[in-house]
């Protein structure tokens, strides 16, 4: 199935700006559904960005991160054409990952 991770990585000079949007409900466990039942907590706990096998950005997330989460950061030491590996794992043990070429 298509990846749940959308990434945009753009290099200008030595700095690469990375934006990611991930398709995930990020249920906090505090919200009730239409029938008044609590929707169980279901959220991404860890999101990792790796370049050449080295972690460049690791996010530890709680249930307060918005649905379809977005994050933006920048790092040095990569060049156009390099590859970024992005992966996440959630509190139910589900996971997904993808690779993106830096533009």
């Amino acid at each position, binding site marked *: 199935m*298509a990846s749940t991770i*959308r990434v*945009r990585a753009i290099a200008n000079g030595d700095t690469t700006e990375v*934006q*990611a*949007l991930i*398709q995930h409900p990020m249920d906090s466990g505090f919200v009730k559904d239409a029938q008044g039942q609590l929707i169980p907590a279901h959220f991404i706990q860890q999101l990792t960005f790796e370049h050449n096998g080295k972690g460049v950005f690791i996010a530890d997330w709680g249930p307060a991160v918005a*649905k*379809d989460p*977005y994050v*933006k950061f920048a790092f040095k030491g990569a060049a156009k054409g390099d590859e970024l590996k992005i992966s996440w794992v959630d509190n139910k043990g589900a996971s997904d990952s993808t690779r993106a070429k830096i533009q």
Partner: protein
Amino acid sequence: MRGRFVPALFLALISAALAAGVIVQAATAGETPNPAADAKAFRDFYVKKFPNVKLEDFVNGPYSLNEDMRRQWQEKEEFPPYEFALESGKEMFATPFKNGKTYADCFENGGIGVRQNFPYFDVKQGEVVTLELALNRCRAANGEAPLSYVKDDMASLTAYMAYTSRGKPFDIRIPDDPRALAAYENGKRYFYTRRGQLNFSCASCHVQSPGERLRAEILAPALGILNAMPIYRSEWAGMGTISRRFITCNSQTRAVPEEAQSENYRDLEYFLSYVSNGLPISGPGARP
């Protein structure tokens, strides 16, 4: 002195006529409907009320009227939440029906860059046809079950079609057909009619108090209010079609909403789109 009597007399006459059940509709309707004049007056009203908002910026609704909200919108637009709907819409649009045809076969120019012409008045059917109605009619014509007007699939399709029309100005036509004029007028009537226990009309919020706060939200101007449709609303944490928006707006005033794509809703969309002619399509949009 004489002048004062005439209106009193006139009023007595009118109420008498009404009481006698004589339809005085035409007489009190005043001038015959003139959509072009309406559209001009509509646009001038907002340009005068918000002199420092550029005309095409009205399509950004609340974000054209409040700086704090605009910054939050610009941040969302960096990587907008409707991205997923847009992609699934593009995929759905290209996926052939069981009979091999696709949506492209139902629309001129393959459905690409045509959103700004909807809704249009279908002279054969004698009714306003909106993009959502056309999509479901296309499905029916190809033996497929219709999509819900308020659920994600329809919103994904209209999101993709809107995206292909981004920047194109609304181009809504009223053909020389009394039924088209009547549909336009009906939409206008609906827009200005108060309803619900809170006794609001669409105009109460979007004409009398755009830019005002409604708790967390800023009311959007009616000019260009449909240009960004369909919208991803943080409130719904999901996509919403024009049908879904009209239904929720009605329930906000505690009026029982009509069924999606009812005649009133389609005429309302016809009126709102016509008076926004010339403003660019900016859908799909992100809203609070």
